[in-house]
């Protein structure tokens, strides 16, 4: 019974995700399948719903067809609320010209009209490409308690990892006093998760002023946070210490899938008190033939397994022929693997076809990738 629409969430789902190579050639990163029956954005959308946030804008621009079809009217997450719900925000034109989105903060600026319509007090800015479970309402409570103008979600990282992140240096009250992008010599262990709560009126002011004066605040990390600190806005770091993974590279996407396989994964996917929902399709049950051999693996509806599956994830409608062996791999929906093939340390894209006797072999440091719809060899039956 929390009040409606106090906080609006905006999920930035427009990036090309070019570090995912072949996998994002024809689809947006947040729509990439994960863990057998999810897509990456499901985690953020479910977090919103579970945090009691009813109104969510998803900003998208790159190859949005699959993502839009996945999100639909938001009903899969209970976000088809009459007083809110999910709105997909794509580029558009106006009397001022065409509105494409040049950066994270610019995307917010271009969609100011939508945000004003919702008239939120707080704006929660999220990425659509992280795997985690987080209660944004607790973060909002913190933001209110600190009387902050901006709260940044941070996660502890090792000095080694810190070199890849934007680092928040704080005083003893957790107020952010300095922001360093990918520092060589990190002064703290607080890495930005790319999760922000803003007082909307304040952020709106900064954005409108900056874009009307050509002093453009294109990006939150590069421009907005430094501007906030320069202007002495009260910015605080909110520490999160649960499971959190950025899955922006082939390597990290594979790694997170393999971690997902462990029954002891701290993500705790089976927790009924914080469900991760996805667009559910009705498909027949999985069919495991008398030649199948499955170990340490996750399998979902409508899979057909006649071969061997070891420490791997099979998504919906995946088919593994007799004599084939799938090891340490994640197979995305609709991919079919013929007979006597080998798939090892690989990510196999949706609807890919791996023919009979084909071999797809990566290593722990160099994961093999088969693109969406890619065809390797010939599948005879």
């Amino acid at each position, binding site marked *: 019974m929390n009040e409606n629409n106090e906080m609006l969430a905006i999920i930035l789902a427009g990036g090309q995700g070019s570090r995912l190579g072949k996998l994002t050639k024809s689809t947006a990163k947040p729509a990439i399948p994960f*863990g*057998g*029956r999810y897509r990456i954005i499901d985690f953020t959308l479910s977090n919103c719903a579970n945090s009691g946030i009813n109104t969510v804008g998803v900003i998208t621009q790159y190859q949005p067809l699959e993502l839009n079809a996945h999100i639909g009217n938001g009903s*899969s997450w209970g976000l088809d609320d009459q007083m809110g719900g999910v709105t997909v925000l794509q580029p558009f034109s106006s009397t001022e010209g065409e509105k494409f989105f040049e950066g994270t903060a610019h995307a917010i600026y271009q969609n100011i009209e939508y945000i004003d319509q919702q008239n939120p007090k707080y704006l929660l800015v999220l990425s659509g490409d992280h795997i985690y479970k987080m209660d944004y309402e607790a973060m909002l409570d913190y933001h209110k308690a600190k009387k902050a103008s901006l709260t940044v979600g941070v996660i502890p990282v090792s000095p080694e990892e810190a070199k890849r992140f934007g680092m928040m240096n704080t005083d003893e009250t957790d107020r952010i006093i300095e922001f360093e992008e990918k520092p060589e010599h990190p002064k703290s262990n607080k890495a930005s998760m790319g999760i922000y709560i803003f007082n909307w009126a304040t952020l709106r002011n900064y954005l409108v002023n900056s874009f009307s004066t050509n002093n453009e605040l294109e990006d939150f990390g590069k421009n907005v946070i430094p501007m906030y600190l320069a202007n002495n806005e009260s910015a605080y770091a909110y520490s999160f210490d649960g499971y959190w993974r950025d899955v922006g590279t082939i390597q990290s996407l594979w790694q997170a899938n393999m971690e997902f396989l462990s*029954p002891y994964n701290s993500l705790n*996917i*089976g927790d009924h008190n914080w*469900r991760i*929902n*996805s667009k*559910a*399709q*009705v498909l*027949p*049950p*999985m*069919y*495991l*033939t*008398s*030649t*199948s051999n*499955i*170990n*340490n*693996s*996750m*399998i*979902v*509806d409508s899979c057909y397994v006649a071969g061997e*599956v070891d420490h791997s*994830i099979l998504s919906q409608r995946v088919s593994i022929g007799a004599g084939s062996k799938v090891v340490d791999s994640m197979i995305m929906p609709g991919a079919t693997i013929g007979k006597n093939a080998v798939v090892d340390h690989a990510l196999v894209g949706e609807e890919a076809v791996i023919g009979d006797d084909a071999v797809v072999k990566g290593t722990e440091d160099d994961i093999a990738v088969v693109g969406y719809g890619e065809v390797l060899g010939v599948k005879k039956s």
Partner: protein
Amino acid sequence: MKHNSVSAIINLVEPWEQLEPLTTNRPVGTLPFGGRYRLIDFPLSSVTNAGIQNAMIISPRSGRSVADHLRSGNDWNLDTIRGGLFNFPYNDLSLIAPQKKETLVHHYYDNTILFLKRSNSEYTVIMGTRNICNIDLRALLRYHQERDNPVTTVYKSIDAKDSDPDTTVLQLTDNGMATAILPAASKNVVPNDNGKFAKSLNIYMMSTVDLIDILKEANERGDLISLENLMLQAVMQHSANAFEYTGYYANIHDIESYYDSSMSILEEDNFRSLFYSQRRIYTKVKNEIPTFFAKSSHVKGSLCGTGGYIEGKIDHSVIFRNVFINRKSQIKDSVIMQGTRIGAGTKVENAIIDKNVVIGPNLQLKGTPENPLVIGKGKRIFQQTEVSNE
């Protein structure tokens, strides 16, 4: 209008006594089948696949399990403004008090007539749920439109030797019209030259206006008989076009036939014919996590739902959603329904275990193919002495 040219009535008032204890707390129509479905999903999916927008469900008793499963009808595409799913509970006459029956005389079919009038449909198809098939109702409609009789009914050709005495079959004329639907034991029906019976699938297509007339006349006469019996009378009275269905078929009328049908789905041809035809089978959508198969698991020739956790050995069985099979247990030739947990080291063979059962460790649960062991919904069994057929 275009979308409303056919409406559907699915009749869940069906004989259930021989399926006890599986039907103690549910109508036959909500009996789980095939790893994630309920029997009503099959006729309802045929309705969906034909683009039919208006469906009425006639439920016995309170229909709570029916309402729980169907909700708004959204999962079968039956909740658009062009039509909808209408659930009418409490139609089983055997459960109605005598003085209540009196008030029903001349009004028993009122709800059905109201539904049909509002549907604005040209034709109506009436189906039961105890005959599993995946029928093309568009083809049935075309067949009906091309022929003269006011009713079209559907049969599956089965070997006469596979029929029980009370299997209902069509009495067919030489030119393929059905003049009656009778028990196989009746001396008025004989197998054809190939030793086949035309087994009735309990599906009827007719014009909505004709059906309303039949129901109104029944109201006027003061009949209190089931819709199914009214259809049998209509076939007797007018003769019916007989449409042959040739796809996968199973008839569920007792525990053994339920068990045999469940096992038949494990044959790959049957599985593909029922679930991977052009006409998909819809059911209530559930968000479940993937099923985890541990290192110690060993699963062969089986169907599995999602949300499960499998450590033991499964051979030639149907495992529903959210089932937990512990280490060193063995499941063979069995049906394990949703939410059931099997303890470590326990052996299950030729058994049907209903929903949300907990079976302790190191027990033996064995039936035979002819007389499968049945464990009722929600049972907790921790001692070998508690294992008994119900």
